[in-house]
């Protein structure tokens, strides 16, 4: 399983809308020649995708989404690969300004292709797709304005962190500085 994290400076509903607009994948997914919906049932959508990477591949993929939080996908037809499964998990960024996308992909190409080569290719593909998604999300108008969010990290106050403490005692001063204690005698 290869993983990647992409920081997209666009609201989560916008990024989710792009990722689930399967017929338009050819507009932004690097190497995507065509993409068409061939079936739909509830939250599951089947799409036929032709993609050119190490070689030209035709895949039938089933996408299943949950809210605007995740999209799982797996290969349901195709002769070029033995298995192709993965997911996108979308999270609101901690600074409240965008979306953090966690992508996972597992590919079994079969045959004698070493796994490290496949993983390297997937890693490169994630980089390119992440850049393409960021650029496309910026270019496309945001359909539904997301409600304003504050930074997630600011929701909980941080515990006070002591820096310095000086205590006067009968014998002098006790000084505590960033975790270290010193005694200053009269």
């Amino acid at each position, binding site marked *: 399983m290869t993983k990647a994290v992409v920081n997209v400076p666009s609201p989560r509903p916008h990024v989710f809308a792009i990722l689930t607009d399967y017929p338009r994948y050819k507009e932004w997914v690097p190497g995507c020649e065509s993409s068409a919906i061939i079936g739909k049932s509830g939250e599951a959508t089947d799409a036929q995708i032709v993609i050119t990477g190490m070689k030209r591949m035709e895949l039938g993929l089933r996408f299943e989404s949950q809210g605007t939080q995740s999209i799982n996908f797996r290969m349901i037809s195709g002769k070029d690969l033995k298995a192709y499964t993965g997911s996108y998990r979308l*999270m609101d960024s901690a600074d409240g300004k965008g979306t953090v996308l*966690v992508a996972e992909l597992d590919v079994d190409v079969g045959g004698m292709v070493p796994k490290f080569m496949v993983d390297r290719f997937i890693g490169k593909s994630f980089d390119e797709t992440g850049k393409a998604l960021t650029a496309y999300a910026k270019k496309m108008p945001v359909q539904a304005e997301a409600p304003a969010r504050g930074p997630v990290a600011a929701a909980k106050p*941080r515990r*006070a962190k*002591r820096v310095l403490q000086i205590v*006067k*005692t009968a014998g002098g001063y*006790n000084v505590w500085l*960033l*975790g270290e204690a010193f005694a200053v005698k009269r």
Partner: protein
Amino acid sequence: MGVLTFSTHATRRFSAEPQLVYEILIDYDGYAEWAPLVTKSKLLAKEGELAIAEFELVHKKAGKVTVEAIHGKNRLVLTRVISGKVPVFQWEWTIAAADKNECDVTLSIEGNKDWNWLAGGYGDFMSPKFGLDRLQSELAVFQPELAIADAQGEKILELSETDEGLVCWLRGKKYIFNPATEGKS
């Protein structure tokens, strides 16, 4: 563990509540202040028990290290590397309550066995004992009362970093300082 990977762990008892240890471990913005070799740290996203964070290390060739962390309230912080050229792929912190205001913390580290990493100055990064040392230092910053028996004397001066700003107590009076705007005196 395979022949190309290693697993090592260490346990230490701390004079601290499990909650304080847990709060330090899930404060990803604060890792740069104590975690070995980390120079910059930033929480990217957090939802429920999952967090995504990004670190920069002393070693520039490591690039940005992105991790995912799974939390178990006050008990567990499991951090896995998603991207970045580092010899470790997982840190697991487990916190077990011991006596009153004490807890046992175990740090388990798993990574790639390659002596080049040690030669490259990653030794501290791969050492659970060193990780626990640094955590202990950070805990001390939140617990000056352990080092100073202030009941035996008069507290003259105390400085603390808080959400309000830098809070100063001087002879019983409270003062709050905020960062000066850049370029202004």
